[in-house]
C-alpha cells in the first residue's frame, strides 16, 4: 500500500472540503498517509499533491519540515526518551542505556521484528515529572530503568493495546463534522460580509 486507499481518499475529500483552499489540507492528509502505512511514502506524497493541487516537491517540503512525519518505516511503537536538562539530571542517560540493551538497537534504529523504534527527544514539557518518555507520543512519567523494561515487555505482550495504538494512528474515533457545524469554506478573498460564525450566531452588528 502506498497511495491512499479508497476509504482514505473518501476521507481525504471530506477533510479537503473543510478548508477554503485545498492545499490547506496538506498536513491533515499527511497524518492520514502516516496512519495508513505507519510512515509517509513517496507515493502517498505524490497522491496528496494530486488531491490538494500542489506539486510533489511542495508536499515533500512540508512533510520533511515536521519531525513527527516519518519518511522511513518505523516500528509499531516509537519510544522517545527525553534527554533535555531536567530529564538528563534525573537519569535519562541511564534510561537510554537500558533501552539500548533491552532492545538491542541504538537511537534512530528499529528492532528487526519491527516492534520498536528508539529515539532521542528534546524537552517534552514534563520537567516536573522527569525523567519522562513517550510511547507513540503517550507520556510515561518518572520512569525508572526497571519500569522501562516492564513497559517494553508489556508492549510486546500486547497488554497496552487498548491504551497505546500503533504508530501513526491519528484517532481511534473519527471526527465527522456535520454540515450544519461547518463554518463555511470561503476563501479569504471571497469574504464579503462579516465573519460567517457571527452570522450563524446572529451576532452581526450593524
Amino acid at each position, binding site marked *: 500500500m502506498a497511495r491512499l486507499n479508497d476509504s482514505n481518499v473518501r476521507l481525504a475529500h471530506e477533510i479537503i472540503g473543510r478548508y477554503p483552499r485545498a492545499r490547506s489540507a496538506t498536513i491533515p492528509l499527511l497524518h492520514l498517509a502516516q496512519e495508513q502505512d505507519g510512515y509517509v511514502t513517496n507515493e502517498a506524497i505524490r497522491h496528496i499533491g494530486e488531491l490538494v493541487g500542489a*506539486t510533489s*516537491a*511542495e508536499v*515533500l*517540503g512540508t512533510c520533511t519540515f515536521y519531525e513527527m512525519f516519518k519518511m522511513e518505516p518505523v516500528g509499531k511503537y516509537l519510544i522517545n526518551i527525553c534527554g533535555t536538562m531536567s530529564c538528563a539530571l534525573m537519569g535519562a542517560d541511564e534510561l537510554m542505556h537500558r533501552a539500548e540493551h533491552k532492545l538491542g538497537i541504538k537511537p534512530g534504529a528499529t528492532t528487526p521484528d519491527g516492534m520498536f523504534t528508539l529515539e532521542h527527544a528534546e524537552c517534552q514539557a514534563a520537567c516536573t515529572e522527569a525523567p519522562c518518555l513517550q510511547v507513540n507520543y503517550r507520556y510515561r512519567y518518572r520512569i525508572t530503568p526497571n519500569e522501562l523494561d516492564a513497559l517494553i515487555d508489556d508492549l510486546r505482550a500486547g497488554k497496552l493495546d487498548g491504551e497505546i495504538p500503533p504508530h501513526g494512528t491519528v484517532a481511534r474515533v473519527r471526527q465527522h463534522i456535520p454540515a450544519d457545524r461547518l463554518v463555511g469554506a470561503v476563501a479569504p478573498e471571497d469574504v464579503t460580509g462579516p465573519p460567517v460564525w457571527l452570522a450563524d450566531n446572529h451576532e452581526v452588528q450593524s
Partner: protein
Amino acid sequence: MTSTDPNLVSVTLNGRTIAATKGELIITAAERHGEYIPRFCYHERMDPVGMCRMCLVEVDTGRGPQLTPSCMVTVAPDMKIDTASPMVKQVQEGVLELLLANHPLDCPVCDKGGECPLQDQAFSHGPGESRFVEEKRHYEKPIAISDLVYLDRERCILCDRCTRFADEVAGDALIEFSSRGGNTQITTFPDEPFASYFSGNTVQICPVGALTAKPYRFKARPWDLEQNESTCTTCSVGCRTIVQSSRDQVLRYQGVDSAPVNWGWLCDKGRFGFESVNSDERLTTPMVRTSGGLVPTSWSAALGAVADLVRESIAAGGADSIAVVGGARGSNEDAFAWAQLAHDVIGTPNVYAQMGDGLPAAVLGLDRATIDDVASATTIVLLGPDLKEELPVLYLRIRDAAVKRGRHIIEFTPKPGGLTKHAWKTIGYEPGTQLAAVEAALADPAVAMQLAKGPVAIVAGRANLAETSTATVLALQAILAAVPSAKVLPALRRGNVVGALQVGVRPRPGGLDTTGVLQAAAAGRIECLVLLGADPLADFPDADLARRAIAGARRVIAVDTFLSASSLQADVVLAASAVGEKGGTTTNLEGRVTSLGRRVTATGTSRPDWMIASGIAGLLGTEFGYRSIADVTASIAARVESYANVTATAVASAPDGVLAAVPADLGPLVPPVLSLPDRNSYDFRLVVSRRLYDDAVSTRTSPSLAHLAGCMTVHVNPLDIERAGAHDGAEVRLSSARAGIIVTVESDATVLRGTVWVPFNQPGSTIGELIDCTAAVTDVRIENI
C-alpha cells in the same frame, strides 16, 4: 519637508531627508537615493521574504532605533533610517560570518567566483575573519536537479530565490526547501526533476555558486568574458540579453531587466540556444551544386551563380516566376535588403516572411497592444497558441498579470495549455468553430460585463497548424466588433517575423504568400525559389506540398546557417552569419525595435544576409550602396514610413528600444470565407501545435537542448481512447483524407473530446503528412493495427 504630493513620503535616510514613494520598500527607496543596502534574498521582481537578514538596517519610527529587515518594511512618514550605523555594521558582519560558517569557500573552482554577491559582500561588509573552527557541513558535490541545472548544496545560503522563482514566477514549484534548521536544503521530488522551461533563470539569480548551468560550467571566468547587450531572437518576444564571449566564442546569455519586455527573465531555449552558433555543423562557405552534389566554393563564384540563376529564371518565366520565402529569422536590415532585392531589383511581388503558420499580415495593421498593455488590461483575451510553448516570456508576463495583479484571462483554445489554470474562463473549441465559441461567450452576460469593466487586450495567433487561419480571423473580428477599443498583440512566433513583414517581406499587389508560392512551385510555375533561412520541408505544416514545391521549383537558392533538409536540395547555398555574429536591429511582436549585439567573428566566411542581398543586387546591375549595416538601418528609417523614428541613434539611446509605428499600408483584415468539411468517417478533429523544444535546426544543434525534444505521439482524451478501441501506449494508424501515419497513443485528459492533439516537428515527426494547408480543418480517424 512638507510635501503636498500624496504619493510621496518624507523619510530621513542617514541624516538627510528624502522623498520616497508611498508603499515603497525601504531597500528600494534607499537604493534610489544612493544608499545600496547589501542583500541576498531580495529580488525586485519577486515578493520579499526576509530570509537572509543581510539587509537589516536601523529604523526609528519614534520608539528608538530598531533593527529591521529593509526588504520587508515599507516607508512611513518621518521614519528615520540608518543604513551605516555601528550596530548595522556589526549585524552585517555577524550575518556574513554565519552565512560563511558552512560555506565551502571554494571560490577558486566556483563558476560564480568573480561575479558572486556573497563573495563581493563578504569583502565589502564581512568581518574578514571567522571564529568558526569546526568541521563544515558536507553534501555530495553538485547534483543534477534537471538536465540543465546543477545544485551544490554546500554553497547554498538558503535565500529562497530559486524556489520563489520556480513557484511565484514560473509556476513550476518543482524545487522546494526540505527538512529544517541546519539540515534545510533545496530538493526536488525523487524522479521529478526541475524540468521547467525557465530553469536557467535560477542560475542567473542565485546569489552564490549553488546553482550552475551545465552549458557554462567551467567554461570561463567572469573577468575573461567580453559582453554586448543584445536581443534574443529565438522567438518574437524579443527579450533583452547580454551576450558574453571569451576567445571569440559565445559562452553565455544573461537576461537583462527590460521593464516593458522580459523583466530579466529568459526561457531556457533562448538562454542556451546560442550553442547552435558554435556548432560544428554550421555552414562555413557558400556551396554550389555540381554533378557531384553540393561543393564548397568562393563567394564570387556563388554570388555569380545566383545572379545567373536569377537572370535565367527571368528569361524563362519573367520576374513573377521568382519567389522569396522566409527572412523572419534575421535582422530588420537583412529583411529590408532582401525585400529591396526581390521587389525593386528582381521585380517579383512573391515575397513572404511567414511559413503558413501565422496570421494574415493585415493583423499587424490593427491597433497594436504592447506587452505592458496586455499585462495591464482588465481583461486579456487569448485566441492563439499555448504561449508557454511558443512565446515563453510573454507567458510569464501574462501569468504574473493574472496571478499577482488580478487580471482576468478569457481563453479560447482547442487544447488547454500553460495559462489555462490561471484563466478566469477557458472556452475550449473544436477547430473551425472559433467563431461560434466567441459568439456564445460574448452572449454570456458575465463575459459581457467583464469585457465592459476596462481595457481589453487580445493576444491573437495560430493555435492549430492543422487548420487555416480563417476561423481564427473570423473569431478575432467578432471580438473586435464587440469590443472596438480592444488592442491586439500578434502572437506570431519567429524572431523577427513582425520586423520582416513591416519592412517589406510581404507580397506586393498580385503577389503570392508562402502557401501560394509553394503551390505554384509544385505546379511547376516557379523558376527560382529563394529560401531565406526557411526550411519548408521541416517547418511548413503541409509536408506533401513542401516536398512537391522543392521538387517542382526549377532552381532553388538557400541562404542558411546550416544545411537543412530544404537547403540540401538547393542549387546554391549561401552561408549566412548567425545571431551574435552580426549587428543590426530586430523588431519584436509589439513592434519594438532593439539592437542586436555583434560579439564574435562570423563562422568561416559566412556573411550577414543584407550583405548577400546587396552583393546579388550589384551583380544584377543595381548598387544599394550599403557600406555598413548602419547604412541599411538609415535606409529603413528613410524608406519605411512606420520606421521613420527608428534611427540607429534612437535605438542606441533607448535601452528598452523604440516602438515602430503601426504600419498603415497593410490593408484591411478581410473577413475570409470558412467552409467546414463533412466529418464522413473521420471522427476526430486534428490539433497540431508546437512545443518549446522540437527538432528545429537551432535546437537540434544545441547539445544541451537537443535531447529535450519529446517524440511524436497522438494525445487522445481517455474517454475517446475507449471509443476508438485503442489503449494508452498502443500503436495505431492515424489517417486523414491525405495520408496515414503510424503513431503511439498517449492518454491525455487535457485534450478535448472529439479532438486529438499531436505536437509538431518532434524528432521523427510525420504529422505534416496528414495536413492539407488549404483545408479549413483536418479530420482524422484512429485505426488499430
